[in-house]
């Protein structure tokens, strides 16, 4: 034996030495070691500091249940991960780990002052103080508490790694590849079932890894499973949550154990839908609760056995065992047989199985029955223990450098509980075991409560002659919850286990109570004098162990976070320096700056071009729905506020769509192509919503209507050509359509070809100028755009973006649904009564318009606003008052919805919702800004060309 590593044994690869560092010191381990086993082999016992008292802590467990040994691992910029369990970190060449929550060092941590002050910091202490003086909370108390709390340091740089995600489907999912799980997989391997076997550790085997007698069986079994074509075995994969209908979330860790940085994903999320689930998650040993049970070197007996058998590492040179369960005896025997001195076996029970006693005697181990450990000596490591007979006060001291605890076993019913399977209390086991399933799932092996570890005594705290209120006997190690904290909670009236948990924070640490829940429950039960089942059980919630945000986010990062929808003309806009804005999922060109122009200058230029010559605009993002069928007109008549039946083929109409509650939800110009065919347009953001709403009415309210709805948003590219020269640009390119004003008036649609491409040509205007919207199949959009640009070059054709579009439409008083209306505006509010079919008996939303407060006077109405100072452009969203001198809170009577500099008018213009606005024409109102009050006059909404002469040319 060299140091703490045995000369032989274990599953580590002694031919591959690995060097790594912890807190700046370089150590050697072997391939197959965890950070915990490798440090232990180097004689390191101190791993971390506890959350509250900053007490020195060593290893409690050997697996993912570990509450104490939390470390940070850093491997280059952005690759810093806090709070990893040393027992689950595989060593690799160059691994750099650090301890946490200590300053200045792990051995000398000033935060440990909390431990001295512990008597003043019982559970819930922060509820009772830090209230005076009041102002100190924000500036002093809270920042201090926050600095003391927390564990490791968060990453500070962007994570350069990426993460994957897959869906998987199987007939049988087995969680846990211990003997029970492997047996289940072997049984299914001969069938036609698709089987997935997953296990959280770096190699399958579970408990078999700790038992050399099973290693050859394990090897053969894994070989058989590898050969079975229907079985997939996933190691380093944690099934963390069991969701509805046998849907299980699991994360596979792919690269963290490798010395070289890999190009593949760091972790992969598996979303598995299983026909049947077998849970074989095993059981976790419970600590015992007594003074000093947290001194480094006091650990679970099963964990010590794992270190011994699997890693060939001993936890001490002279170990003692404190047992309440048979299993610990066997762990102690294993140590003795490996040549470790077993200083004593202390068992709280008065009688134990004779065979155990015989074995102990044969191995020469001193045994003390009906005794308990009442103190542990040493601060940074065990130096000895004090033992007393139960009920007596005699104390004797035993020298040892490690103490194993065997408090019995807790079946891992976490996933079972996620699935809402019920639990039954088993008095003999002192634990909850699976009862009735809620999904197609069953538990096998130790997690079902069936095991061959022997039996034990269920006990809340070990007997001690000392004053229980003066000792720290830990229940939740990481959160520093002691037995007396639980007693205090009960004393203060917290009687439900959920209250006790929240008051003391027991079970709320990063191990989620894997080793503490049952002890906490037993202590609460004893303190309350009620049976455990009357105290309640805290709910197990996903995840089983902590899971990386990045893994759960999966591919949905950066450009893949959400698709950016781009039109077929987007590339041209990008090449020509467009500045974009995001609208719903689309990006749209907002303006096209030329030669260093700012937005203001560019928009002014674009507006001038449209008003004086011709502008070209990519309107492809407009939602489009093809409505076809004999009842198409009837359908639209029922959906929209306006009448549609009399609309002649070849004509267009502005349509207004309400929700059933009477508020405007969408609008758009639509065209009738034939008696049974309409080309609808919707707002850019509303397309999907409108189609869904229409499908809903069509399928479920009016299934008798013979109508088909098809989304054509992405099938058509739409190019708006607007301005007095628009016809001149278009005319030479169009075939089969007479563009003359007589034959193709405003609000008409014609079908023909443009540049040889089929088109639906709308004569519509959102600018007040002569205008066309050219629909061509999307694949031709960019080519047509480029042809129009060259065709219009001599006439000064100018691309314009959404910002100029907004100015131009506002000059004409055209509203934008979603900007000038929100979800609380009726047609009357928006001044759109003209678009409501008065004679129609019904349409969606009509009945709601007759509700008392919708029909009432004094509602906010959309009007124009002109600032006193024409140079001042109001801020959109600014509030309007009648009396600027009033005190706060002011009575606000409206707000600015749209506001721009109008190049055409040489002044600012605005639209606003104002209470009773249409009765206030000419009235002076006020817009109080932080620094001044602006005066505005209420006006009509049409600022430019109110007669509409520019349209009809």
């Amino acid at each position, binding site marked *: 034996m060299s140091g703490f590593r045995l000369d032989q044994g274990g599953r580590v690869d002694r031919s591959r030495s690995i060097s790594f560092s912890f807190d700046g010191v370089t150590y050697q381990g072997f391939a197959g070691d965890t950070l915990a086993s490798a440090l232990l082999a180097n004689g390191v016992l101190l791993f971390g500091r506890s959350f509250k008292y900053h007490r020195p802590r060593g290893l409690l467990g050997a697996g993912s249940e570990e509450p104490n040994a939390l470390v940070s691992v850093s491997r280059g910029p952005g690759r810093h991960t806090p709070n990893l369990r040393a027992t689950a970190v595989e060593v690799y060449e160059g691994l750099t780990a650090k301890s946490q929550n200590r300053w200045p060092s792990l051995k000398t941590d000033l935060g440990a002052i909390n431990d001295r002050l512990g008597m003043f910091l019982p559970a819930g202490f922060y509820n009772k103080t830090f209230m005076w003086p009041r102002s100190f909370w924000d500036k002093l108390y809270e920042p201090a508490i926050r600095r003391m709390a927390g564990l490791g340091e968060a990453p500070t740089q962007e994570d350069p790694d990426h993460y994957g995600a897959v869906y998987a489907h199987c007939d049988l999912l087995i969680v846990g590849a211990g003997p029970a799980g492997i047996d289940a997989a072997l049984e299914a391997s001969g069938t036609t079932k698709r089987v997935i076997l997953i296990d959280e550790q770096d190699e399958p085997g579970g408990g078999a890894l700790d038992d050399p007698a099973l290693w050859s069986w394990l090897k053969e079994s894994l070989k058989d499973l590898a050969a079975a074509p229907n079985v997939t075995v996933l190691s380093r994969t944690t099934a963390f949550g069991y*969701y*509805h*209908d*046998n*849907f299980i979330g699991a994360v596979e860790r792919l690269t963290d154990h490798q010395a070289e940085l890999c190009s593949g994903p760091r972790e992969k999320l598996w*979303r598995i*839908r299983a026909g049947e689930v077998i849970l074989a998650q095993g059981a976790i040993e419970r600590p015992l609760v007594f003074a000093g049970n947290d001194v480094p070197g006091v650990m679970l007996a099963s964990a010590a056995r794992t270190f011994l058998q699997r890693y060939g590492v001993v936890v001490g040179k002279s170990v003692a065992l404190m047992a309440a369960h048979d299993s610990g005896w066997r762990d102690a025997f294993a140590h003795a047989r490996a040549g470790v001195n077993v200083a004593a076996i202390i068992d709280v029970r008065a009688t134990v199985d004779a065979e155990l006693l015989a074995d102990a005697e044969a191995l020469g181990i001193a045994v003390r029955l009906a005794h308990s450990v009442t103190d542990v000596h040493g601060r940074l490591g065990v130096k000895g223990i004090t033992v007393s007979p139960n009920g007596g006060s005699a104390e004797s001291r035993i020298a040892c450098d490690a103490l194993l605890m065997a408090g019995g076993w807790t079946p891992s019913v976490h996933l079972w509980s996620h699935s*809402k399977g019920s639990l039954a209390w088993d008095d003999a086991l002192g634990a909850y075991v699976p009862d009735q399933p*809620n999904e197609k799932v069953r538990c096998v092996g130790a997690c079902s409560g069936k095991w061959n570890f022997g039996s034990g005594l269920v006990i809340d705290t070990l007997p001690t002659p000392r004053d229980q209120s003066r000792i720290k006997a830990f229940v939740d190690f990481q959160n520093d919850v002691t037995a007396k904290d639980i007693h205090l909670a009960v004393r203060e009236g917290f009687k439900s286990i959920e209250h006790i948990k929240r008051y003391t924070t027991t079970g709320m640490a990063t191990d989620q109570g894997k080793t503490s829940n049952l002890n906490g429950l037993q202590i609460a039960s004893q303190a309350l004098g009620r049976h455990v089942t009357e105290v309640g059980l805290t709910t197990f919630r996903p995840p089983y162990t902590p899971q990386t945000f990045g893994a759960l986010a999966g591919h949905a990062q950066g450009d893949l976070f959400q698709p950016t929808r781009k039109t077929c003309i987007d590339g041209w806009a990008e090449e020509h320096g467009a500045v974009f804005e995001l609208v719903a999922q689309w990006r749209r060109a907002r303006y096209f700056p030329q030669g260093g122009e700012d937005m203001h200058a560019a928009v002014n230029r674009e507006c001038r071009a449209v008003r004086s010559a011709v502008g070209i605009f990519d309107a492809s993002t407009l939602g489009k729905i093809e409505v076809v069928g004999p009842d198409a007109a009837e359908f639209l008549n029922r959906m929209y506020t306006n009448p549609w039946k009399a609309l002649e083929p070849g004509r267009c109409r502005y349509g207004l769509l309400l929700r*059933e*509650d009477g508020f405007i939800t969408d609008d758009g110009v639509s065209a009738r192509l034939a008696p049974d065919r309409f080309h609808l347009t919707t707002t850019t953001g509303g397309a999907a919503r409108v189609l*869904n709403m229409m*499908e*809903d*009415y069509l*399928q*479920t*309210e009016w*299934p008798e209507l013979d109508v088909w709805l098809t989304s054509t948003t992405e099938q058509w590219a739409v190019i708006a050509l607007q301005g007095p020269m628009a016809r001149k640009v278009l005319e030479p390119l169009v075939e089969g359509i007479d563009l003359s004003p007589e034959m193709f008036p405003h609000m008409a649609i014609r079908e023909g070809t443009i540049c040889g491409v089929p088109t639906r040509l709308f004569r519509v205007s959102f600018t007040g100028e002569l205008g066309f919207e050219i629909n061509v199949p999307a694949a031709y959009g960019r080519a047509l755009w480029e042809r129009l640009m060259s065709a219009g070059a001599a006439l000064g054709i100018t691309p314009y973006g959404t910002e100029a579009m907004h100015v131009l439409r506002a000059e004409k008083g055209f509203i934008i649904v979603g900007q000038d209306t929100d979800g609380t505006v009726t047609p009357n509010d928006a001044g759109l009564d003209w678009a409501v079919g008065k004679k129609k*008996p*019904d349409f969606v939303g*009509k*009945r*709601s318009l*007759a*509700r*008392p407060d919708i029909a009432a006077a004094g509602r906010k109405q959309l009007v124009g606003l002109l600032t006193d100072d024409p140079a001042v452009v109001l801020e959109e969203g600014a509030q309007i008052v009648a009396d600027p001198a009033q005190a706060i809170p002011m009575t606000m009577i409206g707000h600015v919805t749209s506001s721009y500099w109008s190049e055409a008018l040489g002044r600012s213009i605005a639209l606003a919702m104002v209470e009773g606005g249409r009765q206030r024409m000419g009235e002076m109102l006020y817009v109080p800004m932080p620094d001044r009050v602006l005066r505005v006059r209420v006006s009509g909404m049409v600022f430019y060309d109110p007669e509409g002469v520019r349209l009809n040319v």
Partner: protein
Amino acid sequence: MLLIHCPYCDEARAEIEFAYAGEAHIARPPDPAALSDEDWTHYLFIRSNPRGRHHERWRHIHGCGRFFNAVRETVSDKFEVTYKAGEPRR
């Protein structure tokens, strides 16, 4: 993630293919104008919201596109049955 049987596709598919569409069997009144404000409000807003059997609508929006009805237990979230739109209440 729920597993939902689409009665049109006759397949059980993952919830992310579907859009929930509110309580089922709330028919739009044939003549809304004839309704009192109270009755119209009832149609618009009152929902049974039971702790137990719930009749609800789903749309197989990333599948066949059809709306259909379902009975689901709202405490366990388990589906009892799904059936086509227009079929009688189960």
